[in-house]
């Protein structure tokens, strides 16, 4: 045997890998279930998710009034399926907003837009009972003035954090900030402005605003979008709508970056506050989608035939004249469908994006009186929705429903599975969701052990 093996060229590993890779054998798909729209660097859930973690904004007078990480059991067959099984209060209200997992998925980072505090939760020691591992309290000082940590995006060994504001004027000019997985500050990358273009090509204007951050590593591209600063996102929604000056302070750009060098290359003009960015999955699909909150448009950010990145408005979302206010989006793993939530009408719309330049609405359903986030499983069969946008922007009175709703999608219809009423449970305003699973950490569900 040893002789036989020794006859295999010592370099055969290299040769076979190169041959195999060159003809794409590694592209064969195995079945996985995971939320879409996550960082490509992250560990994956294989199989059914066990938990949905929900970040909530505390409401004064409701429960302990603090922001929380809420764990909901979504494992089929579990005795507590569809129920809240754990809550973890952070002791205070921070305008808790988005959250992201580290590349090894051991920690969930969540940011407070008001206080700029970042909470790092340990979700691997006991995935059913997360605990607070660390709190970053000096984000503003360390970053050199960035305010409002928003998107937490996993890079190898690091977290890329897009902020929303700054400590000089609390407007929309802001930065990307890098931290190690251990929560130590690395560096800050400011977003180009008219005064400091940072070498970027400016299509129309450089507003310096930030919101989401996503990457397409095989093209060495990173995209950032643009929302608004602290002075607006902390203002009462009705008051802001009536404030002419405030309404001018919204982002109108998507910035294209050299991912490896972390250098801004081009600032695209995308008016109307482009929010979530979702890259397509396909190996030749060099494009991403975003939606503009104020103009209710679906935009395509794409690489043209000359290798130049461009932005193009490709569809209306509902009737823009009624201001549906599109918020979260989720792209299917086959690049054929895109779910789009809109806050004002509480609807989710499904677009056929097979032709990315001509998306077509093919389905819609009202989920609640207001709607914000959507997470879908990797196989596209399970969708979860939550309701809160911002504490001061959520609807008032009876329309201020706060929930997590779970649905199944059969390709034609969304079927309701369960609802968790976050007000009834005294949990607060439900915002971003992330999936968890025992299998990620070499663990098995307790019932499987007892069986």
């Amino acid at each position, binding site marked *: 045997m040893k002789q036989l093996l020794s006859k295999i060229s010592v370099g055969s590993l290299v040769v076979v890998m190169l041959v*195999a890779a060159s003809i794409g054998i590694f*592209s064969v798909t195995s079945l996985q279930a995971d939320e879409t729209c996550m960082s490509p660097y992250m560990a994956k859930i294989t199989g059914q998710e066990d938990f949905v973690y929900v970040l909530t904004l505390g409401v004064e007078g409701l429960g302990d009034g603090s922001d929380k990480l809420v764990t909901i059991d979504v494992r089929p067959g579990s005795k507590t399926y569809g129920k809240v099984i754990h809550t973890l209060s952070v002791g205070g209200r921070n305008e808790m907003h988005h959250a992201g997992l580290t*590349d090894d998925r051991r920690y969930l980072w969540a940011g407070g837009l008001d206080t700029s505090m970042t909470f790092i939760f340990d979700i691997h020691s006991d995935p059913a009972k997360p605990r607070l591992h660390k709190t970053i309290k000096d984000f503003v000082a360390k970053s050199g003035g960035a305010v409002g940590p928003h998107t937490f995006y996993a890079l190898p060994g690091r977290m890329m954090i897009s902020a929303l504001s700054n400590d000089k004027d609390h407007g929309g000019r802001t930065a990307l900030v890098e931290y190690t997985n251990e929560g130590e500050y690395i560096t800050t990358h400011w977003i180009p402005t008219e005064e400091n273009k940072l070498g970027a090509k400016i299509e129309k204007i450089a507003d310096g605003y930030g919101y989401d951050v996503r990457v397409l590593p095989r093209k060495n591209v990173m995209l950032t979008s643009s929302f608004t600063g602290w002075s607006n996102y902390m203002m009462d929604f009705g008051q802001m709508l009536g404030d002419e000056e405030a309404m001018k302070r919204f982002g109108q750009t998507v910035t294209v970056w050299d991912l490896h060098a972390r250098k801004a290359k081009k600032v695209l003009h995308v008016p109307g506050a482009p929010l979530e960015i979702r890259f397509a999955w396909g190996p030749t699909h060099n494009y991403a989608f975003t939606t503009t909150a104020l103009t209710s448009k679906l935009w395509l950010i794409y690489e043209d035939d000359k290798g130049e990145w461009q932005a193009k408005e490709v569809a209306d979302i509902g009737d823009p004249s009624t201001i549906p206010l599109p918020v979260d989006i989720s792209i299917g793993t086959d690049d054929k469908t895109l779910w789009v939530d809109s806050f004002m009408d509480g609807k989710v719309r499904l677009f056929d994006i097979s032709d990315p330049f001509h998306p077509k609405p093919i389905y819609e359903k009202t989920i609640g009186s207001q709607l914000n986030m959507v997470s879908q499983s990797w196989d596209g069969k399970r969708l979860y929705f939550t309701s809160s946008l911002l504490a001061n922007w959520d609807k008032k009175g009876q329309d201020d429903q706060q929930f997590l709703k779970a649905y199944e999608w059969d390709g034609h219809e969304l079927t309701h599975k369960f609802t968790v009423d976050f007000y009834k449970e005294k949990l607060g305003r439900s915002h971003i969701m992330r999936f968890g699973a025992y299998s990620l950490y070499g663990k*098995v569900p307790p019932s*499987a052990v007892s069986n």
Partner: protein
Amino acid sequence: MTLFKIILPLITLVLVALPTIRVSAHSDKPHSNKQNENTASLNRQLEYEPPAPGSYRLPPIQQAVDGDVIDADGREHHLFELMADKYVILSFIFTTCSDLKGCPLATLTLNNIRVTLEKDPTLAEEVRFLSLSFDPEHDTPEVMRQYTELHGFDDARRKNRWRFLTTTSKNNLQPILDGYGQYVVREYDSKGQSTGGFSHVLKVYLVDPERKVRNIYSTSFLYPELIINDIKTLILEKAEFQ
């Protein structure tokens, strides 16, 4: 038996790859997030021009971590002693890894970098490669030595350009893994039985002569051109401050 374990990934690769090639050569199936990353990285052709050396910065990410290790000849070392004052590319592997997009890819990439650097002896002299096993129970110094011989890396090993390392115990290994943030867990089946494999996110570390980690590469970044440009960037940075 040990040799068989080492070569098993290769045999598996050949047996699996050949029929799959026929089936999937014209496949246009969608790619999972993970697969998208892997496909991009195993196709060794970069789809973009990497940024030129010196045109960007690599801010220090963290301090490198020392630890007690053993080389493939059974000699004991401290990691820092092996790093010396060189630019170091450090990977964590286990020799029985059969995930082509994991340890074999890391080893392949390190070898490609090594071979490329040998065309520039001055630059090659500035760089060292360290591959440390996170399966010390199986990967003894003897197994690591066989691994290098099997894959044709024994010459680099003898020149001390590329060290294949292991540890005497989990107690010696774990602080190193923790220090670099390399999370590794044993894989278990649905009944809670160990499969013998490990689950880990592939990470390769670039450490500068001041023993600071300057970049971390996952599968998507394991391109020799990119890593060599990073090394050149650090060398230019050092020259700038001297």
